[in-house]
């Protein structure tokens, strides 16, 4: 019985849906497999391990893949080109079913020639598979080519009569192909001395921009959560069939699938790492899964969704990123699953396979990542590596607590992303995480200066009425000014222009010396150190430094200045800022505003612009400080993020105290209806019946109802439970009222904006942004 398939089958393989890059990758997998064999065998290989892909230069061109591998004998070549054949020991190979070669070459073009030669052979031998010529006897034409140097070795695959659209794609998308292959083979190219060239240009491994091994955050001020978790879990060895590749269940002597006796014991191991990326991105986050070094899944996000085993299909709930989702996520990883079967396209694992499920259980655990949700559903706390990272890095507030770079007020996600691009481009100063780390530290430093006043008056350790009332007399400490500072004696000094004493100093110190003195003790301001300018005016590169406390910034005449520019070589300027200048301290001006005034003057002269100063400042701000734009979407999202954190904590407190029934009772009828509607809209119909019986309603009450809850049940939420302001220990009613008003005032702002961000005016947005910052500082446990 002859069951050789019809020649049409070979041609039909080309109809299988493979992207262009997948076709090329199939042809690259084979030489890489050969290279890995050479490495495993320990043979000396002086010519290196290079694969070179030549792209067609016209739609009539050819695609060629050549390698410096061992080359093949005639017999091996015959088997290699036969559909369905695969080398032994397929578990260690990138290649799979032996079909990849036939599928990809048939998909790329109508004729494929393979030429191969081993060191010492006298000529290149090969075979030509012409899909238009081949008949049902499958006789492909043998071909040979002379060989100039007998030491040559390797294999060449030449595909011509290319499919028109695919040839077009390959011709135009060299860079994109390199980038895709650079990410698919990043591990192999990094770990092995292999080189891959596409269109004459080297393919660079696309690496992960993750925080270093030693970085960590403190959860609840004590639990260390690392930003990098190595994974190395040896599973029980398994028995696999060397012929069909199937893992064996039980321990028979013959393969349960193909009946072969060629069985072998193999190691099964899940290894790699999970970690935190140095920037947030809407798509570039998630886990990479590899098989034998090739990335099968890149940025896979399915681990962030919890599948309720008792739930209905399609009702899976995403758990990350939930808060600040408009910036994306940053949890990443690289996990090797060499023992888990993949689909023949090599773009997915067999998700139903037990070995995949085991890996998932190990990495993310069975319970939801969100502790609240886990508790509610009766699961113990999820202690998997991913849950640990989730716990430590779920929020993206600037600072050390979450390891997010900031400018003193808020995170600088656009900048950190931009630095990430520089990391990928290979710029040396962005290769380690130092640049990001310094921006985290600078944020803390700027924030610390601004917070000094608040911390002395409002920490729960001082439930002292005097301190609370004292707050009334304080100047408004607006965080937008960056470093509003309190204190009586330093304030008194700074308001009196100390010209007399400084003038003496001037006589002994040159301008250069003075600036050097300022600089040596100043700290850089990450956000304002950037390129400023406008297409019409040109650009300057500015390094902004904040003077150390106690230092006064004086101009060349000995007069106090809020901002001083020093022109350095060419296009570079250094800007010195005196955070204690009265313009900032007493009038709440923004550093950026006064810096822009100075820069406007410089750029106006340089560009001989006839714009007036306000036009200049406005244009430069719009061009250079786009992050500070006040738009409803961003501020609204920030408000909702904070609100969801507060809801979470309020619900937690109510659950612990059992106060949920009372709390529900405090809602107005209208608020109760709105809560029900919100639950139904969110698909939580089942919860409606439990209204008032647990704290679940808190997540769905209108935002303004939260304000009401805090107002009517202050004792439950103050004193370091949700908010850290003192309440219980304050003896006078007016003191209590003041302490509470500090919270509810801001909360009302945030709630209003979280609900009606769209229609907000600029002053409202500004007020909301301040309220968000102030309220965040009021949250308990957020040091």
């Amino acid at each position, binding site marked *: 019985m002859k069951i050789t398939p019809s020649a049409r089958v070979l041609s039909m393989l080309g109809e299988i849906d493979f992207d262009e890059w997948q076709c090329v990758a199939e042809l690259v997998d084979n030489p890489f497999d050969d290279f890995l064999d050479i490495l495993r065998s320990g043979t000396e290989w002086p010519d290196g391990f290079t694969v070179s892909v030549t792209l067609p230069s016209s739609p009539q*061109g050819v695609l060629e893949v050549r390698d410096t591998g061992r080359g093949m004998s005639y017999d091996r070549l015959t088997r290699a080109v036969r559909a369905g054949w695969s080398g032994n020991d397929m578990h260690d190979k990138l290649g799979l079913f032996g079909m990849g070669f036939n599928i990809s070459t048939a998909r790329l073009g109508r004729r494929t020639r393979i030429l191969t030669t081993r060191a010492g052979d006298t000529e290149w031998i090969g075979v030509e598979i012409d899909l238009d010529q081949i008949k049902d006897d499958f006789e492909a034409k043998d071909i040979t080519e002379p060989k100039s140097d007998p030491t040559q070795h390797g294999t060449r695959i030449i595909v011509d009569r290319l499919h028109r659209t695919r040839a077009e794609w390959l011709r135009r998308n060299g860079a994109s192909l390199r980038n895709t292959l650079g990410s698919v083979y990043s591990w192999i190219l990094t770990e092995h001395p292999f080189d891959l060239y596409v269109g*004459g240009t*080297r393919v660079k491994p696309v690496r992960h921009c993750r925080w270093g091994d030693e970085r960590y955050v403190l959860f609840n001020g004590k639990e260390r959560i690392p930003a990098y978790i190595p994974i190395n879990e040896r599973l029980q060895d398994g028995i696999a069939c060397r012929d069909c590749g199937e893992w064996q269940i039980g321990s028979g002597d013959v393969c349960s699938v193909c009946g072969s006796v060629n069985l072998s014991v193999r190691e099964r191991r899940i290894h790699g790492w999970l970690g935190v990326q140095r920037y947030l991105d809407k798509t570039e986050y998630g886990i990479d899964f590899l098989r034998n070094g090739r990335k099968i899944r890149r940025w896979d996000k399915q681990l962030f969704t919890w599948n309720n085993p008792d739930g209905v299909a399609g009702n899976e709930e995403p758990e990350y990123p939930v808060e600040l989702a408009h910036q994306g996520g940053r949890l990443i990883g690289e996990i090797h699953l060499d023992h888990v079967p993949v689909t023949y396209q090599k773009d997915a694992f067999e998700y139903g396979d037990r070995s995949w499920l085991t890996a998932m259980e190990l990495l993310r655990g069975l319970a939801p990542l969100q502790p609240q949700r886990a508790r509610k559903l009766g699961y113990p706390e999820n202690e998997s590596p991913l849950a640990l990272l989730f716990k430590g890095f779920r929020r993206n507030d600037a600072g050390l607590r979450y390891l997010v770079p900031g400018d003193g007020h808020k995170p600088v996600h656009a900048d950190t992303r931009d630095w990430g691009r520089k990391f990928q481009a*290979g710029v040396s100063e962005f290769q380690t995480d130092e640049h990001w780390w310094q921006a985290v530290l600078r944020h803390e430093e700027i924030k610390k200066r601004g917070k000094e006043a608040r911390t002395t008056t409002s920490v729960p350790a001082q439930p002292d009425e005097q301190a609370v009332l004292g707050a009334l007399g304080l100047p408004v400490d607006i965080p937008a000014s960056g470093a509003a500072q309190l204190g009586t004696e330093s304030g008194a000094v700074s308001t009196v222009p100390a010209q007399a004493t400084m003038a003496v100093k001037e006589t002994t110190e040159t301008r250069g010396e003075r600036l050097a003195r300022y600089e040596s003790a100043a700290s850089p301001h990450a956000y304002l150190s950037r390129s400023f300018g406008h297409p019409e005016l040109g650009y300057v590169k500015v390094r902004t430094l904040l003077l150390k406390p106690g230092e006064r910034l004086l101009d060349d005449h000995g007069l106090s200045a809020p901002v001083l520019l020093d022109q350095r070589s060419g296009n570079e300027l250094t800007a010195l800022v005196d955070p204690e200048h009265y313009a900032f301290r007493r009038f709440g001006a923004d550093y950026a505003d006064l810096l822009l005034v100075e820069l406007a003057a410089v750029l106006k002269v340089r560009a001989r612009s006839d714009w007036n100063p306000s036009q200049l400042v406005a244009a430069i701000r719009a061009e250079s400080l786009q992050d500070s734009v006040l738009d409803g979407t961003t501020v609204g999202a920030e408000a909702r993020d904070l609100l969801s954190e507060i809801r979470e904590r309020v619900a937690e407190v109510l659950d612990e105290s059992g106060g949920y029934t009372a709390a529900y009772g405090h809602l107005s009828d209208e608020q109760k209806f709105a809560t029900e509607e919100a639950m139904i809209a969110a698909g939580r119909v089942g919860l409606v019946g439990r209204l008032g019986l647990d704290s679940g309603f808190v997540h769905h009450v209108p935002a303004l109802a939260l304000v009401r809850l805090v107002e009517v049940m202050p004792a439950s939420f103050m004193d370091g439970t949700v908010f850290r302001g003192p309440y219980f220990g304050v003896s006078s009613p007016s003191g209590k009222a003041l302490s509470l008003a500090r919270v509810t005032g801001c909360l009302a702002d945030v709630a209003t904006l979280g609900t009606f961000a769209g229609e907000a005016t600029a002053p409202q947005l500004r007020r909301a942004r301040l309220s968000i910052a102030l309220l965040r500082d009021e949250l308990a446990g957020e040091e």
Partner: protein
Amino acid sequence: MTDYKIPPVVEKAVVTRIYAQADDAQWPHLQDTDRTRLYREWTEDPDIGGRLLDFVGQRANIRPWLKDCPMKEYERARRGEGKYAKYVSRPAATLEQMVAATLGPDWEVIPGTTQQKPMRAKIREIGTEDEEQHFVAGTAANLKHLAWPAILDRSTGETWPWTICVVDPFRAPVPPEKKGEHRRVAEFLGVRVVYFNEM
């Protein structure tokens, strides 16, 4: 750019260093962004930019010098030609080696006939005096410059054979469709095109 007074010892140290790094990075196969990055690193390297600074006046002159002097000569230097050839640690094939590889070991370059831009020489079969030919070598991208000496030669009525040797690097092979184009040009000009396979 070239009239800076850079002492030979500094030039040697600097050029040896950048050539070694360019070799490691496979300079001919780098993307522009990577070349830019290397230039920046060299400028900032105290052993490269730092040593040049005293002789080129200011920082801004370092990169143009690196680019216009040693790196412009890099390809020729690798083939053993030009003033920087002595600083190359891993030389590429010379004209002599290309002649031997493409035409066979019986052919040699006639001493004193080597010329530059493009790299070319007269060659002959060893032991014969009358089998002389012209041999010119370079990359496929430079084909028109390789063909030009032959065209000039033909235009003055010379009929000596010309062999154009196109370097065919393993990492960036000359595509077959380009080779077809070369063949047509060669036929039209009455010259011969050969390919030198280079790792």
